[in-house]
C-alpha cells in the first residue's frame, strides 16, 4: 500500500473549501440573478441594431400604405405635414450626429431617438410576446411524441424503482409528482420537460435503469425534480422563446420571397387559429417550434434563392427591382441576428442555464443527502453515449449534454475508494469457490498498479462468467454483495449482475450488452463534439462541463477525485500564453470587422429604403392614368437601366 501522494493525477481526497448544499444553492441563485441581468443587458444591446434595421422597414410599409390609401381617399394634409416635419427632424438629428457639429436641442434628440428606436423595439417586443402566447399552451405532448417515450411498466422491477424514486423525490421536494416516461434509446440520458411544475414530465432512457443503482437513479431523478422545483422549466421556455422570436423575424422578412418561409408562416397561422385536441395541438407546437429554429440556420434562405436564379423572366426582373430594398434589410437582419445571438445573447443565456444546472445539482444533494450518488451517476453518464434521438431542439433540457461530455471519462475513483475496492475484491475471494487468475502475487508496487491489475482480473472474471463459468458468477455475486455493503463504493462501472446471470443461461442479448459495455469502457479516442438544438446558436454549450459539476459535488462531500490537469511544462505554458495573445486580438479584430459590416448593412438598408420612399412618393404624385405613355416609357427606361446594369 502506498500513500495517496504517489497518485499523481488525482487530487487529495478532501476538498480544500467544502461547501454545504444550502450555501451552494444560495450562491447559484445569486449568480442566476447576475446572469439574468446580463441576459437582459445583452438583449438590449442586440435590440439596438435590430431596431435600426426594423424601423425603416416599418416606415417604408406605413408610408407606402399611406400613399395607396391617399390615392383613393385623400388623407388630411395635417398627416403629410407631420410626416414631413418628422422626416426633417430625423434628418437634422442624423446630420448633426454624423458631422459632429452644431448643437442639438435635447427635446429634438429625444424625439429623434424615439423615432428611430421605438417602432422597431415595439415590433420586436410584440413578436416576442406573440411567440410567448403562441407556445404557452403548447404542452409537452409534442416533445414526448418526438422522443417516442412510453410509460413505465410497473411489473418490471427496475421501472417500478424509477417510478418510486420519482415519487420519493417529489415528496422530498414537496411538489406534485411529475409524470415519468421512458425512452428505449441507445444513449443514456434524462430530462425534465414541460412548462410548469404541474405538467412536468421526467423522461429517462431505459438503459439508464440498468446502468445505475437505485441511489444513483434517485440522485439523477432528484436533479430533475429539483430543477422543476426551482422553476427551470419557465426559464427554459423563455430562453427558447427568444430564439423562436428571432426565427419568426427571419421568417417574416423572407416570406415575400419564397415557399419555405411562406409555408412556415402558414403553419404558424394555422396552428394559432385552428381548434384541435390538446395532444395534436402540442405536437403541432413542437413542429412549429422546430421550423422556427430551422429558420435561424443561414445556409440557404428564400431571399438568396430569389435573387440568385440564373435567368429571371421579365416579371421576376421587375419584382427584383421593386424588392431590392428588402434584400439589404434581409441581409442586415440575418447578419445582426446571427452575430449577436452567437457572440452575445446565446452565450449569456448558456451561462444562465448553466447556473440552473449547478443549482439543480445542489438541490439534488439537498433532497437525497447523498452527493456520492449524483457524482457516480454523472460519471457513469460521461462514460457512455448520451445521444437521444428526437427532441432535437430540447437538448438543453437534458441532464448531460446529448452531444456527449467525456470530461469525467477515465477518472478513476479516489485513492481510498481504490483501497476499499481492493479490500472488497480480496474479501470476496474467500466467499465463493473462486477462479484464481493465473499468477496473482501481491506486489506492493503501489495502489494504482494494484488497482489496475485487479480491475483486469475482474474483467477477465466477468468474461468467464459471460462464457458460462459457474465459479466466476459465484465470485462476481460474492463481490457484488461485499461491494453493496458499502454505499460509498459506487458500482458505477461494474457490469450488471442480472445480465451476467442471463448470459449464463445463454441469453444472447445479455451477452451482447456485456460485450458492448466493455467495448465502450475501453474506447479511448476523441469523441465528436457536435452540438444540436439551441446550442448551434451559441458558441458556449448550454451544459456545464461534467468535471466542473463533479468538482462542485466534491465540495459538497462527494467521494470523487476531481480531475486535475497534469502539470504541463513551462515551455508548453509559454506557447499556450503566446497563442492566446495572438488568437485573442485576432478574434477581437474579427468581431470588430463583423460589427463594421453590420453597421454598413444597416446604413445601406437605411439609404435604400429612403430612396424607395422617395420613388414611391414621386410615383404616387404623378397622374399616371392621364398620361399612360409616360408610364410605359418610365417602365421601359427602368427595365433598360436595370438590365444594362447586370
Amino acid at each position, binding site marked *: 500500500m502506498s500513500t495517496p501522494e504517489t497518485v499523481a493525477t488525482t487530487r487529495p481526497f478532501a476538498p480544500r473549501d467544502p461547501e454545504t448544499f444550502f450555501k451552494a444553492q444560495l450562491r447559484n441563485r445569486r449568480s442566476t440573478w447576475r446572469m439574468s441581468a446580463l441576459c437582459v443587458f445583452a438583449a438590449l444591446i442586440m435590440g439596438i441594431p435590430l431596431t435600426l434595421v426594423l424601423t425603416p422597414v416599418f416606415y417604408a410599409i406605413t408610408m407606402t400604405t399611406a400613399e395607396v390609401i391617399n390615392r383613393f381617399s385623400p388623407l388630411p394634409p395635417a398627416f403629410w405635414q407631420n410626416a414631413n416635419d418628422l422626416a426633417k427632424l430625423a434628418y437634422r438629428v442624423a446630420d448633426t450626429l454624423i458631422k459632429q457639429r452644431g448643437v442639438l436641442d435635447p427635446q429634438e434628440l429625444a424625439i429623434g431617438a424615439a423615432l428611430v428606436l421605438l417602432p422597431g423595439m415595439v415590433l420586436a417586443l410584440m413578436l416576442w410576446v406573440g411567440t410567448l402566447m403562441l407556445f404557452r399552451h403548447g404542452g409537452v405532448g409534442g416533445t414526448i411524441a418526438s422522443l417516442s417515450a412510453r410509460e413505465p411498466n410497473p*411489473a418490471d*422491477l427496475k421501472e*417500478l*424503482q424509477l417510478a*418510486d*424514486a420519482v*415519487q*420519493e*423525490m417529489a*415528496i*422530498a*421536494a*414537496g411538489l406534485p409528482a411529475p409524470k415519468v416516461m421512458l425512452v428505449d434509446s441507445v444513449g443514456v440520458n434524462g430530462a425534465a420537460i414541460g412548462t410548469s411544475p404541474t405538467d412536468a414530465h421526467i423522461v429517462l432512457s431505459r438503459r439508464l435503469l440498468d446502468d445505475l443503482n*437505485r441511489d444513483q437513479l434517485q440522485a439523477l431523478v432528484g436533479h430533475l425534480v429539483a430543477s422543476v422545483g426551482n422553476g427551470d422549466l419557465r426559464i427554459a421556455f423563455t430562453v427558447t422563446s427568444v430564439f423562436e422570436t428571432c426565427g419568426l423575424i427571419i421568417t417574416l422578412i423572407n416570406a415575400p420571397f419564397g415557399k419555405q418561409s411562406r409555408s412556415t408562416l402558414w403553419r404558424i397561422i394555422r396552428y394559432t387559429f385552428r381548434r384541435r385536441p390538446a395532444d395534436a395541438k402540442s405536437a403541432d407546437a413542437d413542429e412549429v417550434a422546430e421550423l422556427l429554429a430551422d429558420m435561424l440556420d443561414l445556409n440557404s434562405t428564400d431571399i438568396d434563392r430569389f435573387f440568385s436564379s440564373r435567368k429571371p423572366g421579365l416579371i421576376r426582373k421587375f419584382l427584383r427591382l421593386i424588392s431590392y430594398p428588402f434584400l439589404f434589410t434581409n441581409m442586415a437582419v440575418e447578419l445582426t441576428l446571427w452575430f449577436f445571438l452567437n457572440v452575445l445573447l446565446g452565450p449569456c443565456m448558456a451561462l444562465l442555464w448553466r447556473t440552473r444546472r449547478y443549482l439543480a445539482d445542489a438541490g439534488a444533494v439537498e*433532497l437525497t*443527502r447523498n452527493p456520492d450518488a449524483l457524482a457516480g451517476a454523472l460519471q457513469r453518464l460521461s462514460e457512455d453515449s448520451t445521444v437521444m434521438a428526437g427532441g432535437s431542439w430540447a437538448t438543453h433540457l437534458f441532464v448531460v449534454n446529448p452531444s456527449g461530455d467525456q470530461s469525467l471519462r477515465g477518472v478513476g475513483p479516489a485513492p481510498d475508494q481504490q483501497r476499499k475496492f481492493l479490500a472488497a475484491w480480496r474479501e470476496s475471494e474467500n466467499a465463493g469457490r473462486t477462479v484464481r487468475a493465473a499468477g496473482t502475487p501481491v506486489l506492493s508496487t503501489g495502489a494504482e498498479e494494484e488497482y489496475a491489475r485487479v480491475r483486469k482480473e475482474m474483467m477477465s472474471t466477468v468474461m468467464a462468467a459471460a462464457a458460462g463459468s459457474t465459479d466466476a458468477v459465484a465470485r462476481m455475486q460474492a463481490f457484488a454483495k461485499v461491494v453493496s455493503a458499502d454505499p460509498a463504493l459506487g458500482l458505477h462501472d461494474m457490469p450488471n449482475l442480472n445480465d451476467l446471470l442471463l448470459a449464463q443461461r445463454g441469453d444472447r442479448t445479455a451477452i451482447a450488452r456485456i460485450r458492448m459495455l466493455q467495448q465502450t469502457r475501453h474506447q479511448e479516442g476523441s469523441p465528436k463534439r457536435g452540438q444540436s438544438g439551441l446550442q448551434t446558436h451559441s458558441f458556449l454549450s448550454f451544459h456545464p462541463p461534467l468535471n466542473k459539476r463533479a468538482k462542485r459535488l466534491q465540495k459538497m462531500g462527494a467521494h470523487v477525485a476531481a480531475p486535475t490537469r497534469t502539470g504541463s511544462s513551462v515551455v508548453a505554458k509559454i506557447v499556450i500564453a503566446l497563442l492566446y495573445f495572438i488568437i485573442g486580438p485576432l478574434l477581437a479584430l474579427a468581431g470588430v470587422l463583423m460589427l463594421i459590416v453590420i453597421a454598413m448593412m444597416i446604413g445601406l438598408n437605411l439609404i435604400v429604403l429612403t430612396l424607395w420612399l422617395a420613388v414611391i412618393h414621386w410615383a404616387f404624385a404623378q397622374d399616371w392614368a392621364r398620361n399612360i405613355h409616360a408610364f410605359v416609357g418610365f417602365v421601359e427606361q427602368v427595365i433598360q437601366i436595370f438590365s444594362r446594369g447586370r
Partner: protein
Amino acid sequence: MDILVVLIATIVAVVLALLYLLRVYNGLIKMRNGVRNAWSDIDVQFTFRHNLVPNLVESVKGYMSHERKTLEAVAQARSTAMKAGADIATRTVAEMALSGAVGNLFAVAEGYPDLKASRNFLLLQEQLTTTENRIAFARQHYNEMVRKFNTSIAEFPRNLVAVALGYTPEKMFAAESHDRANDQNVPVS
C-alpha cells in the same frame, strides 16, 4: 401646498407599510400551511405502509413457516400502529416499532434463497423500500419546512407579526430518539 405634500407622503408610506404587512402576513400563513401539509404527507405515507404490510406477510408466509414469531411481530406492530390514533407521541413510537419489525423480517428473509429469488417478493420488497424512503423523505421535507418557518418567525420585522398571530416555533420531527418522541408537539391537520 406643503401640507398636501406631507399628507400625500404619509398616505403613501402608510399604504406601503400596509402592503408590506400584508405580504408578511400571507407569507407566514403560507409557511404554516406548508408545515401542516408536510405533516399530513408523513401521515399519508404511514397509512400507505399499513395497507402494504398484510400483503408482505401473506407472500412470505409460505416460505417462512418457522419464523412465526417474526411474522407475528410484524402483524402485531402494524395493528398497534393503526390503533395508535391521533396522539402523535404514541403514534410515532408505534410507527418506529413497525419499521423495526419490517426491517427484521427482511433481514430474516435473507436466509431464504427461494424467497429472495421470487419475483413477487422482489417487487414487494421494492414497495416497502420505497415506503420507508417516502416516510424518511416526508420527514426531511417536514423538518425543512419547520426550519424555514422557525427562522422566519424569529427574524426581526416578522417576529412582531408572528407574535400578533400567536405563532410559536414548531418542533422538528426527531426520528432517531425514542425518548424525545414523548414531548413531540407536532400539529395535526
